[in-house]
């Protein structure tokens, strides 16, 4: 896409579908204000990424972006809560600074996105390897598969991680 993508399609996209998108979100979220916010963020994202749908694909395209935004919001909220819960068990002096917390939450979001794009067994192998420090042989025993399967899972896991960090 050229750097100066014509804004006209975005204008007409907004005119034609903004009302519909807001209604679609309201129906799913049951919250008028959040629906309005997310509809607005959806168009903002289009403006920033300069991605536009093909003709006649507008609604599906907008709904997909809006859906990802909603899911991201919930994920962030859930991860933040789980992280704060885990901190609550730490003794006071070890409690990280607000800045560190913000960075950890961002990183957790990224890792969560990676995990979410992996099939179940791949995710399991990846967690055991990276966060429980198991060797491939130990993982193979735990998952009752061969070591070469574990290698295959890990390769898929790395590919999934790469996609999350470097897609596009």
């Amino acid at each position, binding site marked *: 896409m050229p*750097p100066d993508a014509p804004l006209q399609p975005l204008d007409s996209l907004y005119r034609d579908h903004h009302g519909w998108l807001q209604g679609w979100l309201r*129906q*799913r*979220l*049951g*919250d*008028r204000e*959040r629906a309005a916010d997310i509809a607005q963020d959806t168009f903002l994202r289009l403006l920033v990424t300069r991605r536009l749908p093909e003709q006649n694909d507008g609604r599906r395209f907008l709904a997909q972006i809006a*859906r990802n935004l*909603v*899911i991201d919001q*919930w*994920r962030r*909220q*859930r*991860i933040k809560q*789980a*992280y704060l819960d*885990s901190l609550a068990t730490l003794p006071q002096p070890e409690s990280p600074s607000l800045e560190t917390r913000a*960075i*950890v939450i961002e*990183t*957790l979001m*990224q*890792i*969560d996105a990676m*995990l*979410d794009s992996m*099939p*179940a*067994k791949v*995710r*399991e192998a990846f*967690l055991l*390897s*990276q*966060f*429980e*420090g198991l*060797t*491939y042989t130990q993982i193979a025993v*735990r*998952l*009752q*598969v061969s070591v070469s399967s574990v*290698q295959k899972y*890990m*390769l898929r896991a*790395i*590919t999934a*991680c*790469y996609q999350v*960090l*470097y897609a*596009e």
Partner: protein
Amino acid sequence: MKTASEAPIAAAIVEQASHWLMLRWSGELDQEQQRRFAEWRAADPEHDRAWQRLEHLQSTLSGVPADTALSVLREQPDARRRQTLKLLAALLVAGGSSYLVQSQLPWREAMADLRSGTGERLQRTLADGSRLSLNSGSAVDILFSASERRIRLLTGELLLDSGHDAAQRPLIVDTAAGEIQALGTCFSVYQQGDKCQVDLFEGELELRPLQARATRLQAGQGCWFSATRFGDIAPANLNAIAWHDGRLIAERMPLGQFVAELARHRPGLLRCDPAIAAVPLTGVFPLADTDRVLRALEQSLPVKVHKLTRFWTTISPA
């Protein structure tokens, strides 16, 4: 404008770099492999750039203490998909009872690709010709790619009659307990908590629990499985998929089980007094009109149906 470090890297090079990282993570790289890795990295600036990206990935992964990552991301291995966040319940729109049902949906299900409301049953023909039916209160994501056809069962029950895929991509149903790979089949999957009941009517299936060895089912067999184990293999229960035709079939079914089944097709609460839960029931009932089913119960069994509110019904001894 994209800087050089942001420019895409050829897929083949990323693949090679990923392979090296996979070997390094195994912790079993011998000296010869170390040497070949160093050679590979030095052979081309693009190799080095790909490797730097993977080093960035490693630093991302180590940016969180392992126990934090595990407690936050892992405490319920697969729960992120089906976690019943009741957050939406706080967002009720006053007066709209249809919102009540919707607002209690966990977000994943609210935003699923295909979802059936309570009392609703859906049928769709997928891009590969497979016929997918959803029972009441079910949700799936449909993830078809060039290499596989994956259906993620987020909640509830599905019946899949798999079509013939020209590209011969594997067809996989993803559940909280593990994966189910179809080998040209017609089967149903019902997810209840961390267990999955699978009934196979045609063809063959491979069940792959998250943490147990895979096993195969033959046509006419059914069993449940969880992440770690399997139940006994039993004959597949055709009555269990009568919902597909909008019917509920009971053959000497305990009333408690029948009521739990019926409750899936009605908004609100439907409870059965434990005193009569064991009473056996036989019959074919229409799912489209659950009120009529309740009246039929009163006529054929010694029970009384109490409607406390529109959304709260109990069944007790007459």
